[in-house]
């Protein structure tokens, strides 16, 4: 582990990253199961029921929590993958920056969707 690796990881320590990866994993697993069960349990789901679900405050908070979890979870995961396979610092930094920008866009876009309809 060199210096370059340790300045780009999210939690600044492996243990913090490990914990964040677990907490976000539990949130994302729960969100995935809840949303899939809702869709499967409501065949022929119409706009009113769909928009009704996402207009509930708890669902908006839960969805934002899932989006922020995706941001942290994907950052830690992609950081691990890029530091494993990309040995050259500049290309690795550029790929990580592109991933970070994408995650930022996802979160802002998601907030706009959730509170904008």
């Amino acid at each position, binding site marked *: 582990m060199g210096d370059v690796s340790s300045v780009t990881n999210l939690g600044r320590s492996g243990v913090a990253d490990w914990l964040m990866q*677990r907490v976000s*994993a*539990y949130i994302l*697993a729960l969100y*995935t199961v809840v949303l899939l069960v809702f869709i*499967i349990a409501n065949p022929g789901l*119409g*706009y009113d029921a*769909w*928009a009704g679900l*996402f207009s509930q405050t708890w669902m908006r908070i839960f969805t934002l929590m899932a989006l922020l979890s*995706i941001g942290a979870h*994907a950052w830690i*995961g*992609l950081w691990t*993958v890029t530091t494993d396979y990309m040995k050259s610092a500049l290309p690795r930094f550029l790929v990580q920056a592109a*991933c970070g920008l*994408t995650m930022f866009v*996802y979160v802002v*876009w*998601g907030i706009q*969707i959730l509170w904008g*309809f």
Partner: protein
Amino acid sequence: MNNKRPVNLDLSKFHFPLPAIISILHRVSGIIIFAGVAFMLYGLDLSLSGEEGYGHVSELLSGFFAKLIIWGILSALLYHLVAGTKHLLMDMGVGEELASGLLAAKVTLVIAIILIVLAGVWVWAM
């Protein structure tokens, strides 16, 4: 460093045990999901924009390529979920030995394949 160390970095010549394949697929599926979020957010945005937008998403989902994309994202998501659950169980000390680790890898693969097939049936029945 000893320069006479045997070096074999030809990945095609390595034999990967099943838990290693499960692990690399976990990474691949994670990258697919990361890209897939863009499709899911686009669908959510359109579906919540009104009756018309919702109808447009339903119409899109009746097309072959949209079904293929959704099935692909769902497959990656379901695989990642099952393989991730294995990780969480390993945190609790389940499946850490050689034999139990191999069994856990086999169970992960079987459950993931069943869920992916079911998801395919579901997507094409929609």
